């Protein structure tokens, strides 16, 4: 029997969440940016695949931080370019 590894269960993998459209537009107005100016993440990233995010989704990553204890980061899912 083979169980598929869920990367999100690993201790070193932070929480990934897909943001709703309202959340995204709120985020964009907060920082006065377009989605292009967000940091990126590839669509074939194991964590992205696990939560089922699609290209152009924005993902919220909540991770432990040395300095702040808990930090939030946002990433735009993009297609991995050809070589």
């Amino acid at each position, binding site marked *: 029997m083979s169980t598929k590894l869920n990367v999100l269960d690993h201790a070193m993998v932070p929480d990934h969440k897909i943001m709703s459209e309202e959340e995204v537009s709120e985020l964009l107005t907060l*920082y*006065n*940016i377009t989605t*292009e*100016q*967000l*940091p990126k993440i590839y669509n074939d990233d194991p964590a992205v695949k696990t939560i089922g995010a699609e290209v152009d989704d924005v993902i919220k990553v909540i991770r432990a*931080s040395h*300095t*702040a204890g808990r*930090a*939030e*980061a*946002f990433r735009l899912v993009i297609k991995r*370019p*050809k*070589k």
Partner: protein
Amino acid sequence: MPSPKRIGRIQFGLLSPKEIREMSVRKIIWADTYDDDGFPYPQGLMDLNLGVIDPGLRCKTCDQKASECPGHFGHIELAKPVIHVGYTRLIRKLLRVTCRSCGRVLLSPDEIEKVVGTEDDQTGDILSEKDVKKERVCPHCGEQQLKINFEKPTTFSEVVVEDGKKVEHKLTPADIRARMEKIPNEDLIPLGINPDVARPEWTILTVLPVPPVTMRPSIILENGQRSEDDLTHKLVDIIRINQRFKENQDAGAPQLIIEDLWELLQYHVTTYLDNEVAGCPPARHRSGRPLKTLSQRLKGKDGRFRGSLSGKRVNFSSRTVISPDPNLSVSQVGVPRAVANEMTIPVRVTAYNIEELKQIVRTGPLRPDVNSPCGANYVIRPDNRRLRLGADNLDTVADMIEPGYMVERQLRDSDVVLFNRQPSLHRMSIMAHRVKVMEGRTFRLNPAVCPPYNADFDGDEMNMHVPQTEEARAEATILIAVQENILSPRFGGPIIGGIHDHVSGIFMLTHEVRWFRKDAALYLLRYSGIERMPEPGKVEDGVEYWSNKQVFSQILPDLNMVFKASSCQNCDVCKKLDCERDAYVRIIDGKLECGTIDKKAIGAFDGQIVNRIIRQQGMKRATQFIDDFTKLSIRSIMYDGFSFGIDDEDLSKTEYGQIDEVLKNAATDVDRRIRIYEDGQLEPMPGRTIEETLEMQIMQVLGKARDLTGQIAGRHLGLGNSAVVMAVSGARGSMLNLTQMAGCIGQQSVRGERIVRGYDDRTLPHFKKGDRGSDAHGFIQHSYKGGLNPTEFFFHAIGGREGLVDTAVRTSQSGYLQRRMINALQDLKVAYDGTVRSTGGKIIQFQYGEDNTDPTKSAFGDPVDVKGIVESILKEEC
């Protein structure tokens, strides 16, 4: 200034012969440059249509003067085509992947699709030589393909099989060009070539552009002779051969001669483009120096990119050797008069400063001595004419001056300058100092600012830059000044502080309790700017005495803190006030109650007191404190005197006996363990072989023995020994260094193991094969003072070399690592909303450091220094 633009696309293409002829203003046919009258030949390499370099002449193309004419290209019609060396790899690839008869790619559409992908889902790969099988038949016309050989630098040949023998058949550039012309446009796209801008036949030159004269100016030597640029020399060669080639061709010379000339032309064009091609002797100047041709202008450290665009030489800078001067403030720099007289600051003349500036102009370019007011070197009139000041025109120019003029004034005391030492690894490598003009030929600086620059005085040189505008000076004083950079953003603590003698001196002053008479106390504090002495600590027989702690307290601001000095031994239970090492430091209301001031308190990188003063009283007070304690500590080290000599490493007979005893016991212990091992009685440690276990045990025994000799030596050497003072106070060295000098140097190691390499089963022929004893594997039982025996000396050299190699490798590796990191992080900035963004406005971090805290202003990583605040209010340790 124009607004920044985003680059959407960059297109690379080849210059077509048509373009070359279109941009050319003149066809060049004369190999000579100037005639006997010094006038350029028409249609020669210095033709006036190509631009002008001599002042006074006008360009025949654009009718502008030498300074305005940008120069114009000319061209040379080559007698026969030649290969461009820069494209030989592309040519080779194209010859190998296309058909020799029909010019199509040697792959069927299906095969191409396999590599490139379908039109709407391209994998991004382009066709390469490997995708085409060797010597196959063309799928389009059925022609049998031949193997193409390429010989550096520019020879291509086909391999033909004749009578079972392989014969190489040379391809001339004309043949190759004919083949390139046959390749259809649509076949070029899967090869990664855009045929609109880069037809492959353009890699074979039929016409050569001649760069403008402005790109290859001739210089006139002192004897009036003209010396031409390397490029011009090379172009002369090309034209000469080209002309000869043409003449021979027209005269119908035999094929052999034509081929020879063709090859010669190819050689000259090749070296003109790149004079460092493999398999091609570089073209040389008459003196034997290789010519610097086109590619050499761009390549390498001094090339256009790394030498002229990424880094340039600057004006208003100077460089000389540095030397120490503890009487300067850390924020000052001593500048030699010769430098100060040469470097200037432009000052605009106004109604308010006109009298002062007139006086400055009257002083002229030579300032008589360092204390006299500064002079000026140039005066700039409102029409931008520069007047050089000399002894003869000082008064005339001074009387001329009125508002609107500019005076280039010499450097004088308290001007702001930037001071720098390479390698500039962090931002503290460039700091703004205040000028102090001094006699002598070196830059002077307070030794307390050595740590941020990583400078010493064994011949180091440093650079000084003079900011020229008010904005630059304002930035320098507010952001770059030394005071603003005492705290390092690396760990949030002071990076500027006492070193070496500062630490030894302040340690000797403040250790335990000493009493000074008035004259001694005043001697110590003379340069610290103290206005009045406190009440004496005690009066004996009518003589007033001040304690050493009182003396030190004079330079302290109002302060409360408690900490442990670096001489603290970290006892299980701190004895606090009763500490026998006087390592418990307590400062109440700016008075040193007890404890020794040493590296922990004032040293660079530690500096607890300096740190606390910055937090509570600000940078300015901290700078003053650093200035005060450097002067105080230097005075106090001079008061007692401080020296170290060979006899400071002497021990008494008892100690030498004990050390011998310890080493003898260790040797027998090692031998005993070896015997146990040889008898097969040794129990291996978990996860280790028996040999490894034995090695570890031996290392342990010998390490312990060395430490023991250190303790024996330490018993004899007390605080009366200068090396002990330096080690305990943290000024320099450690007790280990002292152990090695007086006791025993100990085990030498390579990669953490005893030395094992050398001969068969032994390190040196002096030992028996298979000897595992301590002295056969690099244990040095003598001290540096006592002297090493020959085998020990050899092992010491082995161990020492490892350290040298390690440092050399580490610096080069970390240097490259840092270069890459800086390239990745440069131009990032913290925006007003706390995000870190790139120049394109892209967000890198949503909050700076995720906690929006400046590490410089944090207390060793934490945003608020709770302990420090509580301590200063309670005046107690918490």
